[in-house]
């Protein structure tokens, strides 16, 4: 599993570049590097459905980002300025929070099953009943469209709500100049 570690290191570096670079277009491209690495890692952990969806969503996300940046500005003028009091306070607050969060996560992760060996108590039922009851060969599709179809309905609701929000914000009719 050495390739998973290599991709995780690459993603961490790219994420740091995305947060710290001055040019916003370069930041968005670094974000795209992280997203496509996630897609490749989905293939490596045997999740082809996720990889397909991640690639499509990643392309659309980058297009939206680039469209917004082309209409506005591509220089992050807050990078390289002198630090103000609020900024230093937020960095100190974040460091304390990150420390406590890492300790808590470390203790919580020890309760989880080790990597590559999940419990699969519920999933074994879904795998056994997927083909006879739901009738689909792809078990992920069985879960989202049959066993947990109400979750998918909620997902569609959230998606349409966000589309209504975007349409209301980006409208040009009836807006005061």
């Amino acid at each position, binding site marked *: 599993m050495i390739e998973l570690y290599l991709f*995780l290191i690459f993603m961490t570096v790219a*994420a740091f570049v995305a*947060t710290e670079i001055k040019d916003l277009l370069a930041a968005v491209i670094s974000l795209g590097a992280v997203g496509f690495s996630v897609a490749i890692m989905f293939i490596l952990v045997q999740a082809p459905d996720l990889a397909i969806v991640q690639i499509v969503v990643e392309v659309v996300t980058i297009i939206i980002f680039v469209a917004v940046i082309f209409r*506005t500005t591509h220089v992050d003028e807050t990078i390289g300025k002198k630090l103000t009091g609020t900024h230093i306070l937020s960095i100190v607050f974040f460091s304390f929070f990150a420390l406590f969060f890492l300790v808590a996560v470390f203790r919580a992760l020890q309760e989880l099953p080790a990597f590559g060996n999940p419990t699969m108590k519920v999933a074994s039922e*879904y*795998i056994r009943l997927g083909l006879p009851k739901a009738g689909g060969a792809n078990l992920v599709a069985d879960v989202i469209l049959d066993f947990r179809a109400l979750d998918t309905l909620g997902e569609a609701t959230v998606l349409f709500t966000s589309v209504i*929000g975007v349409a209301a*914000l980006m409208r040009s009719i009836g807006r005061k100049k």
Partner: protein
Amino acid sequence: MIMFLSCIILYLIGLYAIVTKRNLIKIVIGFALIEYAINLLFALIGFRSNMLAPIITKVDMPHRFVDPIPQALVLTTIVIALGTTALMLSVALRIYNRYKTFDIAKIRKLKG
């Protein structure tokens, strides 16, 4: 274990961008990074060594699959992440059109 912790470090980089950055686009990038980290953590938790993707390709094949439930949950999350990112970016675009800046320290005045 180290694999899960590196996902958490990616999460913390996203949280760092949200808490300490003053540019709106950088804050949206931080949200996107958090979404990637959590999706990846779920997919890694469901992984089993030397097992196949959960797709039945032959009749009576042995059921040696990775966990399909985290994959189904993450499939939902990825699409919702796209919706929230588009909504946040449209809010940022409207704020820029009104204030001509992305700097949240300068977006203080109540206008219009």
